C-alpha cells in the first residue's frame, strides 16, 4: 500500500541571535548582531505506511517537534520533499490539516475560557463535521476517554490529565486518518498515562489509525510501538523495530544470582562480574558469545545457587548509549 507520509532529505535551519554576556555585550549587540545557525532537522528521510504506530524519540532539541511541525504544515522547511496523505503540508495547509489530528502535550488547542463541550462544538463548525457524524463520534470519544463529567467545566479549570484526555478527543472529532502525538503523556500521573496509552493502542489496533508518537517516556514506546525512529542532532540514528534498537545499542544482558553461601568466591570466565553484595552477584555477558542457557548451566554446576534471573537492559540505557555514540561520531548520512 502507498505510504501516507513520505519524507526525503528534509532540512530546516533556525537562525538564533546571540549576545555576548553582560552590559557590554548588550551594547555591542546594538551595533553588530551575531547569529548562529542551528540545523534543527538535518536531512531526514522516512516513510510511514497506513496503520503503523511509530515511536519518534530523541533527546531534547533533537528535532522531533520541528519534524512534526513541518509535517503538520506549521513550519516551512528549507529544502527536501515531504508528502502527508498525498499533499505537501505547507503548500496545501488547509487540505492537509483537515485530515490529520495533532496533539501537542505542552500546549492545548481548546479554548481556555469556554467549557469543553463548547470547544468541541466550535471544532465541529470549524471542521464542518455533519451533525450526525459529530454526535456519533463525540459520543464514542466521550465514552472511550471517560469525559462525561468534564464537559461543562471551563478548560482552564481542568487538571493536566483531564485536559490531555479532552485534547485527544478534540484532535479526533473530525476522524483524521493520521495522528501526530507530540509528548502526549508529558507530566501525567501514572493512572492518566495508562489511560492515554490504552486509548492510543485501541485507536491504532481497532480503528487502524496511523500514529506518529514523540515522547521521552520509553515505557510509552515499549507499550505501544512496533517501530522506532531515533533522532539526534537532526539526523535519524536508527529506524526499525524495537528489537533492532536493542541489538544495535549493545547486546549485553545481565544475570543476577543469589548464592547459597554469601562468602563463596565466584569464578566465571564467560561473564564479567559487575557487582557483588554478600550473596547477590551481578554478572554481565554477551549473548552472541555465550548462550544464556549454557552460561547458567556452567555457573550452576560450579556454584550452589538459591535463585537467579536474566534481564535485558532497560531501554533508557540503550537509548542513552545511542545518543552518546551519535555525539561522539556523527554518522555520515546523506
Amino acid at each position: 500500500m502507498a505510504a501516507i507520509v513520505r519524507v526525503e532529505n528534509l532540512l530546516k535551519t533556525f537562525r538564533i541571535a546571540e549576545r555576548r554576556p553582560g552590559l557590554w555585550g548588550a551594547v555591542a549587540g546594538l551595533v553588530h548582531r551575531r547569529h548562529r545557525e542551528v540545523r534543527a532537522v538535518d536531512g531526514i528521510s522516512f516513510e510511514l505506511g497506513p496503520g503503523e504506530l511509530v515511536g519518534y524519540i530523541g533527546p531534547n532539541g533533537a528535532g522531533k517537534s520541528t519534524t512534526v511541525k513541518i509535517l503538520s504544515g506549521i513550519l516551512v522547511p528549507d529544502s527536501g520533499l515531504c508528502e502527508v496523505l498525498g499533499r505537501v503540508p505547507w503548500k496545501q495547509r488547509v487540505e492537509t490539516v483537515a485530515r490529520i489530528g495533532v496533539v501537542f502535550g505542552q500546549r492545548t488547542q481548546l479554548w481556555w475560557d469556554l467549557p469543553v463541550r463548547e470547544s468541541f462544538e466550535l471544532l465541529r463548525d470549524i471542521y464542518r463535521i455533519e451533525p450526525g457524524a459529530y454526535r456519533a463520534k463525540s459520543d464514542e470519544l466521550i465514552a472511550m476517554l471517560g469525559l462525561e463529567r468534564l464537559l461543562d467545566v471551563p478548560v482552564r479549570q481542568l487538571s493536566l490529565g483531564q485536559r490531555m484526555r479532552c485534547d485527544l478527543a478534540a484532535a479526533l472529532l473530525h476522524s483524521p486518518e493520521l495522528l501526530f502525538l507530540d509528548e502526549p503523556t508529558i507530566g501525567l500521573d501514572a493512572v492518566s498515562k495508562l489511560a492515554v496509552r490504552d486509548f492510543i493502542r485501541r485507536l491504532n489496533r481497532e480503528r487502524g489509525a496511523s500514529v506518529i508518537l514523540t515522547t521521552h517516556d520509553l515505557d510509552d514506546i515499549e507499550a505501544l510501538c512496533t517501530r522506532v525512529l531515533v533522532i539526534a542532532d537532526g539526523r535519524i540514528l536508527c529506524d526499525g523495530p524495537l528489537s533492532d534498537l536493542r541489538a544495535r545499542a549493545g547486546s549485553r544482558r545481565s544475570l543476577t544470582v543469589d548464592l547459597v553461601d554469601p562468602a563463596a568466591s565466584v569464578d566465571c570466565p564467560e561473564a564479567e562480574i559487575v557487582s557483588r553484595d554478600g550473596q547477590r552477584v551481578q554478572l554481565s555477558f554477551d549473548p552472541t558469545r555465550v548462550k544464556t542457557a549454557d552460561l547458567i548451566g556452567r555457573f550452576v554446576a560450579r556454584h550452589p545457587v538459591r535463585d537467579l534471573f536474566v534481564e535485558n537492559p532497560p531501554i533508557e540505557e540503550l537509548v542513552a548509549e545511542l545518543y552518546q555514540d551519535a555525539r561522539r561520531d556523527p554518522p555520515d548520512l546523506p
Partner: protein
Amino acid sequence: MRPYLCILGARFRVQLQYRAAALAGTLTQLFWGLIRVMIFDGFYRSSTAVHPISLAQVVSYVWLSQAAFGMLPDRVEPELRDMIRTGNVTSELLRPIDLYWSWFCRCLAMTLIPTLMRSGPLLAVAFAFLELQTPPGAASVLAAAAAFAGGMLVSSAITALLSIGLFWTVSGDGLTRLSVAAAYLFSGMVLPIPLLPEALQKAAALLPYRYVLDVPMRLYLGHIPASEAPMHLAAQLAWLLVLVAAGRSVLSRGLGRLVVQGG
C-alpha cells in the same frame, strides 16, 4: 462562512463575561465626553470666526465618537499577541480554515462587541440629556448606517494588519504606540477633521482612519450631505480591499519565516 461566524460567536460569549468592564467603559466615555464638550464650548464662545462645523454639530460629533470609541483601530489584538509570543499560534495553524479571515473575525469581534455593549446606554443618555442631534433625514440615516458598518470592517482590517506585524516585532508595544497616535488624530478623535489645520486635513485624506469614524459621523450629522455618500462609501470600500490584500500578503510572508521553539 459558517466557521468564521462561529469564531465571532465564541468571542462574543467570552466578551459577555466582562460586564463590569463594559459599565466602567460607558461611564468613562461619558465623563471624557463631558470634558470634551466643555472645551469645545469654551473655544466656540471665545471666537468670532466662521467655523467649518457648527458647535451643535461638534457636540453631536463628540458624543458619537465617544459611543463609537471601541471602533478605533488603536492596538493589536491581545490574544493574537499572546499566541504569537508564546508559540500557541500553532493551534491556529492546525485548523482547516483560512488564517487571514479567522484573524479578521477575531479583530472584528474585538472592536464590534465592546462597541455594541457600550454604545447603547451612552447614546441613550446623550440623546436624552446632552444635546445629541438626530440625523437630518432618512437618507442620512441609511448612509451613516452603511458607513458605520464599513468603518467597522476597515477598522478590523487595520487591526488585523497591525496584529500580523507581530510576526516581525513579537512584543507589539511599538506597533500599538504608533497606531494609537495615528488612529486618534486621523479618525477625528482628538479634533473633528474639519477643524484640523489644512496640512493635517490633507494627510487625513490620504489615510484610511477617517473612514472608520469621521466620515460615518459626518454622514450622520448631515455635515457630509447624503448625496455625497456613494462617493465616500466607494472610497471606504476601496480602502477595505487594499487593507485586506495587504494583510493577506504580509501574513503569507510572515508564515514563511515563522519559528516555533519548543515542544
